[in-house]
């Protein structure tokens, strides 16, 4: 039967015509053709049997809707623009969040993939020493396989100073992660020759997609190597990095002769991943690995802290540890909330537009009702029109969102691709948003149309609904603007405020001597030679060593029992560090040659104040309480934001370097403006075989600013969007009020009413919803959102008076401007002309 119905639908034009012919013949055969009745009606009734009438009606409704929109293009365009922006923001952000935080990368079975970090009660590291990875691999029954990655920069081609992001990986790496090759093959066990694999991006941009590259010999880190193949696009490895060249870990010594990474139990480490055996959970694996860890610590006590264990993080959560996961959840929650707020404002805006639009069409609806249209039919007409608007808005919004997300991903060089093909979840989200918008837009005016039918006279009821809608818009805009204000202020304070040290003309030289096979003694000799050579070069003003570079991407951080909530960046530096970075010593002395980790430590002022309640603590033991090794405080340094520049819960401690730190040390140098090559030249003179990577600290700082910049740009965009929407809303409402009351205003003006009373008549209705919405919005931000905004990882100051004042002022000015134009029109109304209308 369904088939016959469909068949009828396909051939309905012909069949309808046949029916008409048949009836015409019938009529002709009858003695009294007049008895046949209305042929048209008969035909329709007969055709209805097939059950396709609803479709005809929808087509009718759509046609009518399009006609209406063409008659009032300003309404349709505004509505579509509002929808595009409202939905576009949501869809774009969803794309980015999905790609950056939620989607479990493009790895095979991310649920059973884990990252392992070496933890102990007194120290933690996101990496694991290579010998430990091998020890764990042999002494466990919960891991099916162990993967090792070491990310670093290496030179490509003959120019040794040209560094590309590279990684050395174990031979099972690509197979376990499910990577594929577009050209050639990937790395496999037992590759006799040192081969490299290229990223798709590198192959495309640097090598011009040359297919002959596979099998050819290239120079990688100065050594010849064969190109085995090219990875498929979109493979960013487990940690999501734009690594361009992948080389086999087993041939590490070939590219870095004498490297001791494979044999030393510290301090250098590699990234360790593992595939869990089937049926093994993350927690049970973590427990089971305590035993081999304790055994390894017993054999190599110097390499481990107290009670060592391995912390596992799941690939399904992008290898985020608990704290990072909480921070990510906070960000996702806040951003999603703000997006939904934009959508809510857009919906309220549309609904109020639509109410006005429907009210202006009341005569049309009454006409239809008078001609016998059912209430349901009129309702459906409106819903169909809304569906049409939402569909167009959704398509535009999706396109806008995708373009924006793609642009942002490209601008930030984010390690993910924004796919133009929506995945199922995205489609569901889009439909969800669309439905919310449809309900917000369609139902309210539809309901109004019905109730206005009951008012036979066609009077327009008071626009209480309009005021509620304006209130909602003010509330949402207020929240968005306040958050935007805070984000912008945060960026200002981060970018302009003193980071606590002088980074101008500081160059960072990174050379991982351990990979060149320089053990502590050799490394010490290298650094001494480098320091002497630098002192002889007039372009280099001073140098210092540190294990981590300020503004760098890696650091060591500790939490102390005495200072809950405070994260301490634990720096290991040489005695020149504070002088070079121009971090003032407030009390005591800086570190000196001869200090050891047990004898001396310098801590920052905030740490002293939080831990001891004051800065008069030189000579005390650090940390205040604890059963581990304790050092004596020799000096108090001024606060400096070394690593996490946006965080407000950071403090610093500086310990002297030990010989074992030297192979992994980083050289900081203050050089003459622009003379970064001087440092390269010095290094070249000291040892031509070692090619360090040198860059400006200022550039690292700029990179760090990217995140707050994106944050504040995003927030400001959303704030601006909210402002635009509220302006449209207020403008529309005031203009509409003036239109409705033209006659009344005309009479009042003619009778000599003052301008103030007319303005009050027009704008008075707005006062209460604006005030209530504004107050509620402000309260929501200052009370409800203060905590998540102020905490990690956003650290926004929700009580910043400038942010609040600026946001509210922007809202007020925009509101006044939006109501000014139509209100002025009210004052210009000519009484005679107004009365002549209708």
């Amino acid at each position, binding site marked *: 039967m369904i088939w016959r119905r469909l068949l009828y639908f396909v051939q309905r034009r012909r069949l309808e015509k046949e029916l008409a012919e048949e*009836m015409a013949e019938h009529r002709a055969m009858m003695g009294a053709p007049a008895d046949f*009745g209305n042929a048209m009606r008969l035909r329709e009734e007969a055709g209805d*049997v*097939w059950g396709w009438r609803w479709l005809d009606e929808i087509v009718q409704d759509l046609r009518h809707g399009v006609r209406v929109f063409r008659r009032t293009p300003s309404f349709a365009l505004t509505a579509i623009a509002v929808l595009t922006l409202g939905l576009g923001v949501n869809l774009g952000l969803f794309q980015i969040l999905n790609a950056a935080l939620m989607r479990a990368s493009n790895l095979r079975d991310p649920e059973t993939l884990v990252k392992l970090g070496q933890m102990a009660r007194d120290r933690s590291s996101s990496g694991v020493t290579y010998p430990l990875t091998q020890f764990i691999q042999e002494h466990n029954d919960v891991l099916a396989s162990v993967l090792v990655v070491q990310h670093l920069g290496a030179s490509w081609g003959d120019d040794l100073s040209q560094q590309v992001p590279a990684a050395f990986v174990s031979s099972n790496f690509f197979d376990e992660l499910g990577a594929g090759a577009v050209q050639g093959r990937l790395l496999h066990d037992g590759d006799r020759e040192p081969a490299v694999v290229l990223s798709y991006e590198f192959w495309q941009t640097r090598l011009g997609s040359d297919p002959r590259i596979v099998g050819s010999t290239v120079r990688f880190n100065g050594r010849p190597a064969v190109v085995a193949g090219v990875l498929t696009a979109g493979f960013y490895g487990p940690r999501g990095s734009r690594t361009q060249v992948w080389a086999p870990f087993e041939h590490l010594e070939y590219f870095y002769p004498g490297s001791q990474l494979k044999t030393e139990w510290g301090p250098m480490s590699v990234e360790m991943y593992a595939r869990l055996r089937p049926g093994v959970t993350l927690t049970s694996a973590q427990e089971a690995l305590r035993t081999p860890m304790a055994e390894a610590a017993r054999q190599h006590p110097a390499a481990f802290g107290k009670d060592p264990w391995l912390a596992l993080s799941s690939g399904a959560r992008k290898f985020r540890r608990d704290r990072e996961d909480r921070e990510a959840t906070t960000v996702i929650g806040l951003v999603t909330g703000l997006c939904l707020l934009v959508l809510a404002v857009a919906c309220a805006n549309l609904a109020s537009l639509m109410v006005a639009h429907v009210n202006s069409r009341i005569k049309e609806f009454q006409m239809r009702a008078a001609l016998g249209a059912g209430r349901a039919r009129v309702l459906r007409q409106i819903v169909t029109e809304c569906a049409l608007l939402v569909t167009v808005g959704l398509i535009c919004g999706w396109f806008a969102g995708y373009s924006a997300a793609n642009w942002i991903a490209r601008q930030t060089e984010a390690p993910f691709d924004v796919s133009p093909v929506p995945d199922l979840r995205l489609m569901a989200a889009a439909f969800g948003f669309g439905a919310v918008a449809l309900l917000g837009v369609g139902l309210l005016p539809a309901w109004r149309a019905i109730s206005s039918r009951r008012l036979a006279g066609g009077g327009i009821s008071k626009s209480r609904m309009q005021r509620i809608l304006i209130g909602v818009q003010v509330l949402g805009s207020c929240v968005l603007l306040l958050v935007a204000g805070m984000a912008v202020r945060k960026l200002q304070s981060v970018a302009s405020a003193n980071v606590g040290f002088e980074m101008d003309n500081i160059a960072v030289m990174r050379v991982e001597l351990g990979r060149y096979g320089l053990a502590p003694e050799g490394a010490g000799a290298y650094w001494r030679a480098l320091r002497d050579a630098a002192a002889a070069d007039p372009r280099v003003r001073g140098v210092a060593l540190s294990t981590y570079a300020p503004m760098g991407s890696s650091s060591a951080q500790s939490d102390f029992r005495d200072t809950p909530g405070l994260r301490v960046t634990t720096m290991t530096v040489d005695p020149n560090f504070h002088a070079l970075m121009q971090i003032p010593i407030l009390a005591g002395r800086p570190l000196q040659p001869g200090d050891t980790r047990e004898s001396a430590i310098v801590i920052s002022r905030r740490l002293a104040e939080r831990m001891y309640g004051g800065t008069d603590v030189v000579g005390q033991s650090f940390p205040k309480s604890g059963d581990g090794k304790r050092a004596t405080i020799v000096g108090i340094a001024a606060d400096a934001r070394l690593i996490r520049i946006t965080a407000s819960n950071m403090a610093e401690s500086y310990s002297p370097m030990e010989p074992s730190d030297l192979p992994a040390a980083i050289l900081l140098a203050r050089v003459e403006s622009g003379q970064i090559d001087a440092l390269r030249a010095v290094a070249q003179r000291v040892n031509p075989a070692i090619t360090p990577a040198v860059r400006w600290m200022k550039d690292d700082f700029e990179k760090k600013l990217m995140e707050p910049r994106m944050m504040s740009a995003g927030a400001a965009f959303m704030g601006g969007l909210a402002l635009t929407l509220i302006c449209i809303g207020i403008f529309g409402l005031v203009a509409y009020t003036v239109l409705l009351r033209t006659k009344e205003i005309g009479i009042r003006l003619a009778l000599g009413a003052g301008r103030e009373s007319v303005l009050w008549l027009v704008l008075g209705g707005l006062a209460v919803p604006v005030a209530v919405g504004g107050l509620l919005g402000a309260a929501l931000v200052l009370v409800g959102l203060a905590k998540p905004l102020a905490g990690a990882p956003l650290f926004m100051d929700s009580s910043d008076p400038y942010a609040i004042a600026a946001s509210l002022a922007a809202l007020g000015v925009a509101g006044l401007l939006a109501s000014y134009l139509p209100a002025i029109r009210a004052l210009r109304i000519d009484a005679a002309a107004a009365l002549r209308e209708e």
Partner: protein
Amino acid sequence: MMILQVLRHGPLHGYAVAQRIHTLSNEELRVEEGSLYPALQKLLLQGWVKAEWTVSESGRKVREYRLSAAGRKQLDTEVSEYERMSAAVRAVLKGAS
């Protein structure tokens, strides 16, 4: 049921169906065109009749309806159902008088 019954003896076009019912019922029943055509369309939808164009004896182009196998079966069940019902009604009427 009546339409199916008159089609049992061979294909007929719409006007003829109405005429046949009219004459068979001793001019007692008259099928309105307003209900004839929706009924015919319903039969088509159910697949109980099939329609095809032919030329009538008077030389007019007409569409004839022919009973299908499914329609024959349906007619049999409907007739027996009707007879059962009308027998029951008759029995009640007899008993009451």
